[in-house]
C-alpha cells in the first residue's frame, strides 16, 4: 500500500512538473483589452503648452462625462452629458486627486503610483513599511500654509482597546475609533481630549409600499409614531450620535433646519392601526444583517428593541437575520416584506448622495414605488446652481418624505477620535478626512496617528477604503476640497469654478504656483489626464492598483469603453 502511494506520488510529481511548465495563465492574468484611443485623445505635450482634450464620441455609454479639456494652461472645462449640480462636491473627493501627467505616464498608471505618490499636498510620503507604519514629511514647496508638524506617522491597530492603550502610554498623539465604552475614560483623563465626529450617515427602518398594509400611507405614518428613536439612540449608540429628524444628516447640505419627525406616540399609533384594520392580529418581520456599521453599531440588539416597541402596540414581529450580500440584494430588488433595517453613509457631502440615490426616479425598489412629488422636488433642486437656490427644494423633498414615510429615520451614528490634551487644533472630521498639517502636537516635530487599518495603496483613484483615503488626503489634492471642520466645498487646486446655465459645463481655474512633490508645476493637462485615465477603461494608463476605479464609476455613472456587463 505504502509503495503504491509512493509510486503514485512520484507519478504525480512528474505530472505536475510537466503540467506546470504548460500551465496556462490564470484568469486574473487575462490579456488586457486592446487600448483604443478615444476621439480627441492627445498625448502629454513636451515643450510649449499644448492643451489636451479628451472626449467621448457621444453620450450613449450612459456616463456623466462628454469631454474634458484644457482650455489653456490654467483652465479646465468639463462638459457633461446631463446636468449635475453636485459636480463640485464630487470632484472635491480624494479619489479624484490630481497627478502630474508626466508621472502618470512614467508609472504606466500603476506601479510606483501606488507606493510612491507624487501629489501637491502638504506632506510627501517618506517611507512606507508595509505592515508597520507610514511616514510623511513636510513638503517645503507646498502652495499653502506649511504643515505644522514636520513629520506625520500613520500607524494602525484593529482593536480599539489597543489604540487607547497606545494613546494612554503616550506613544501616539491621536487615535481613531474610540470604543463606545471608552468615551468616559478619555473624557476623565486630563492628559487626553475627545474629538466627536457627528454622523454623516443615517440608520433607517425601511418599509416597502408594494406589500400591504405598508401600501397604506396612514399605516406607515402610524408606525413612524410607534418607534421611540430617542430610546434607541440613548441605549445603543455612542456619544456624538443623534436622533434623526429626517433622512439627511445635519452636517450635509440638504438638511432641513426645523423639520422634525413624528413625535413618539404609541397610543395614537395603535389607534390609527386599529382604524385602518391592521390591528389586532398584525404579524410582520424585521429583516436585517448582522453587520456593524457606523450608523448601526449594535444591529441585533436594536432589532430586538424595535421588536419590543412594536409588541407594545400589539404588533407581533419576527426577527429575520440574513447574510449581508443576500440582504442588500433582496432589499434593492424590493423583495423584503415587513420592516428592514438599513443605513447609508456619505460618499460626498451633498443631498444628491442621500436623497436622489434613495428617493429619486432611479432609486432601488427597497421602498416600493417612488413618489412623483419627491422626484419633482429633487429634480428642481438638481437644476439650480447655488446652495441658496437649491435648499428650498430639498426642504420640500424632506417634507414629502416625512409625509409619505417610505422609511423611519432613526439615528445618525457618531463616533470619535481622541488626542493627547496638548495637541492644538485637534479635530475629528465628519467625513473622516482629518488634515494633520493643521494640528500642533504640543510643539513636537512628529505627530503619530493610529487608525483602524493599514492604507491599501496611495493611488486613491483606485481605492474605496476610508483608512486609505485619509492617508491620501495628506499627500494628494483635488481641484476642490472639503473645509476641514464643516465639509463645505472650498477652493483647493482650483481657485474658481463656475457652471453654465444648464449645469452641463463646469469650468475650473487652477491656482498659480502649485508644485508637485517631484518639482513639476501643475497645469490643466495634469487635470485632464488625471480624470481621463480613470474615465476611459481602454486608456493605456487605466491600470491603477486593481483597475476597478470604483468611485469614478459610481459617482460619474460608469466608465467610457467599459466592458459590457454580462
Amino acid at each position, binding site marked *: 500500500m505504502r509503495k503504491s502511494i509512493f509510486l503514485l506520488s512520484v507519478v504525480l510529481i512528474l505530472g505536475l512538473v510537466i503540467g506546470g511548465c504548460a500551465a496556462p495563465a490564470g484568469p486574473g492574468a487575462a490579456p488586457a483589452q486592446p487600448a483604443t484611443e478615444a476621439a480627441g485623445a492627445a498625448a502629454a505635450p513636451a515643450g510649449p503648452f499644448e492643451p489636451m482634450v479628451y472626449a467621448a464620441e457621444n453620450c450613449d455609454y450612459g456616463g456623466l462625462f462628454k469631454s474634458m479639456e484644457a482650455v489653456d494652461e490654467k483652465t479646465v472645462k468639463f462638459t457633461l452629458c446631463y446636468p449635475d449640480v453636485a459636480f463640485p462636491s464630487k470632484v472635491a473627493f480624494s479619489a479624484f486627486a490630481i497627478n502630474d501627467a508626466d508621472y502618470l505616464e512614467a508609472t504606466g498608471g500603476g506601479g510606483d503610483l501606488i507606493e510612491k505618490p507624487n501629489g501637491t499636498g502638504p506632506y510627501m510620503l517618506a517611507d512606507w*513599511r508595509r505592515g508597520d507604519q507610514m511616514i510623511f514629511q513636510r513638503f517645503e514647496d507646498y502652495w499653502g500654509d506649511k504643515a505644522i508638524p514636520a513629520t506625520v506617522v500613520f500607524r494602525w491597530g484593529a482593536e480599539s482597546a489597543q489604540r487607547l492603550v497606545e494613546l*494612554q502610554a503616550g506613544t501616539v498623539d491621536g487615535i481613531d475609533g474610540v470604543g463606545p465604552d471608552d468615551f468616559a475614560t478619555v473624557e476623565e483623563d486630563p492628559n487626553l481630549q475627545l474629538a466627536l465626529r457627528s454622523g454623516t450617515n443615517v440608520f433607517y427602518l425601511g418599509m416597502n409600499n408594494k406589500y400591504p398594509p405598508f401600501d397604506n400611507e396612514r399605516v406607515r405614518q402610524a408606525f413612524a409614531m410607534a418607534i421611540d428613536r430617542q430610546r434607541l439612540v440613548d441605549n445603543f449608540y455612542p456619544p456624538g450620535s443623534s436622533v434623526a429628524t429626517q433622512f439627511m444628516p445635519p452636517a450635509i447640505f440638504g438638511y432641513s433646519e426645523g423639520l422634525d419627525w413624528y413625535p413618539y406616540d404609541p397610543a395614537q399609533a395603535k389607534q390609527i392601526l386599529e382604524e385602518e384594520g391592521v390591528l389586532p392580529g398584525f404579524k410582520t418581520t424585521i429583516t436585517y444583517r448582522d453587520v456593524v456599521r457606523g450608523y448601526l453599531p449594535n444591529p441585533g440588539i436594536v432589532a430586538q428593541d424595535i421588536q419590543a416597541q412594536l409588541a407594545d402596540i400589539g404588533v407581533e414581529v419576527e426577527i429575520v437575520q440574513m*447574510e449581508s450580500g443576500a440582504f442588500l440584494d433582496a432589499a434593492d430588488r424590493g423583495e423584503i416584506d415587513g420592516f428592514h433595517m438599513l443605513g447609508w453613509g456619505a460618499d460626498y457631502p451633498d443631498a444628491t448622495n442621500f436623497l436622489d440615490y434613495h428617493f429619486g426616479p432611479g432609486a432601488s425598489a427597497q421602498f416600493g414605488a417612488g413618489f412623483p412629488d419627491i422626484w419633482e422636488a429633487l429634480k428642481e433642486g438638481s437644476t439650480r446652481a447655488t446652495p441658496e437656490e437649491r435648499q428650498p427644494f430639498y426642504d420640500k423633498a424632506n417634507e414629502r418624505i416625512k409625509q409619505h414615510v417610505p422609511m423611519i429615520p432613526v439615528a445618525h451614528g457618531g463616533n470619535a477620535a481622541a488626542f493627547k490634551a496638548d495637541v492644538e487644533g485637534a479635530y475629528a472630521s465628519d467625513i473622516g478626512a482629518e488634515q494633520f498639517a493643521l494640528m500642533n502636537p504640543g510643539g513636537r516635530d512628529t505627530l503619530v496617528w493610529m487608525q483602524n487599518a493599514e492604507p491599501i495603496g496611495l493611488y486613491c483613484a483606485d481605492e474605496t477604503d476610508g483608512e486609505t483615503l485619509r492617508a491620501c488626503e495628506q499627500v494628494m489634492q483635488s481641484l476642490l476640497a472639503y473645509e476641514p471642520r464643516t465639509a463645505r466645498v472650498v477652493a483647493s487646486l482650483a481657485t474658481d469654478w463656475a457652471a453654465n446655465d444648464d449645469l452641463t459645463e463646469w469650468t475650473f481655474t487652477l491656482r498659480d504656483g502649485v508644485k508637485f512633490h517631484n518639482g513639476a508645476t501643475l497645469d490643466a493637462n495634469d487635470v485632464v489626464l488625471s480624470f481621463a485615465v480613470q474615465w476611459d*477603461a481602454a486608456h493605456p494608463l487605466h491600470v491603477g492598483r486593481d483597475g476597478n476605479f470604483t468611485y469614478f464609476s459610481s459617482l460619474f455613472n460608469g466608465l467610457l469603453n467599459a466592458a459590457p456587463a454580462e
Partner: protein
Amino acid sequence: MFVYILRRVVLAIPVLIGILFLTFLLSRLIPGDPCRAVLGEKATDVVCDAFMERMGLNKPIPVQFAYYFGRVLTGDLGNSLRFGRPVTDMLMERLPVTIELALLSLLVATIVGMTLGVVAAKWQNSPIDAVTMVFANLGVSVPIFVLGLLAAYLFAVILKDTPFALPPSGRLQAGIIVKTIPEAWGMEDLGGPLRWLLDFLSQMYVINGLLTLNFKVAGDAARHLILPVIVLATVPMSIIARMTRSSLLEVMTLDYMRTARAKGLNERNVIFRHAMRNALLPVVTILGLQLGGLFSGAVLTETIFGLTGVGRTLFDAISSRDYGVIQGFTLIIAFMYVFINLLVDLSYAVLDPRIRLS
C-alpha cells in the same frame, strides 16, 4: 536517512495538493460576495461584473482551480483580491514577522516550561510542585486577549516613565526608518536566492539591526517583542511544563533509573543525562505541534500587539473573502507543518538511538 527524507517529502505532495484543493473549495463556500467584500457594499453591478471578470471569479470553480493549480506549480500563488499585490510579496513581508515571534516564543516557552516541568517532577507532590503546576495551569487558562491587554496596560500605562516601561504594540518606535540588509550593505543590485534570503531576514528587525550594525533598531525591535513573546509563550510553556513533568515522572520509575542511582550517580546526572533524554521524546512531539500552531494561530497576539503577521493577515483575508491570500497563506502554513513534523521525526533518531528511520 536520505531515502527516508525523500520518501517523506514525496508523500507530502498529495497532502499539500489535498489541502490546496480543500482550501480552494472551502474559501469559495464562505457566504458573501467577494466583490463587495473587497470594493465595499456600494460597488455597482457594473463595477462588480468587471471585477469578477478581471479576477476570473465568474468562471466555473473547477476551471478556476485548474488555472490556480497551474500557477501554483510555477511558484505563482496569485494576487490578493483586496490588496492587488502578489501573495508571495505579502508572504515575504509577513511570514518573517510570525517566524520571529513564533521562534522566540517557543524558545521562551521551552526554557521556562522545561525548567518548571523538571522542578515539579523533582519535588513531586511538594508545595513547589503545586505552585509550579498552578502557574502552568494559569498559563493555559487565561485567555490570550485578556493577558495581552493587561500586560500592555501594566507595562505601557501604569509603569510609564519607569525603567520597566515597555511599548504596548507595534514593531518599532514611530518614525524610525529601517533599511533592508541589501540597502545597508550597498548590495541593492544583488539578485537571486541570496537577495531573497536577505530581504526575508530584513523583515526580522532584530536580526536586521544586528546584521546592519544598527543597534538602535535591534534594541528597539527587541523591546517591542518582549510583551508579545511572553504572552504568546504562555500557552505552550504551560503545556511543555506539564508534559515534561509527567514524562519525566514516568521515566524516573523505570528500572534503569534505579540502576543509575545504584551506580552512585548524583541526582543531577540521573535526571539530566539519563532521564531527560528519554523523557524528551513526547516533549519534542509537543514542541513540533506547538510551533506549527504558533505559525498559524498567533492571530490574537498579533492583533493585540499590532503585528501584521501570517495569522492576522489570514484572519483579515477570510473576513474580506480574499481568496488568493487564504489559499496561498494556508498552503505555506501546511507546508511548514509538514516540514516541522519531518524535523520532529528526524530528531527522534538523535534523541533515541534505538529509533531507526527507514
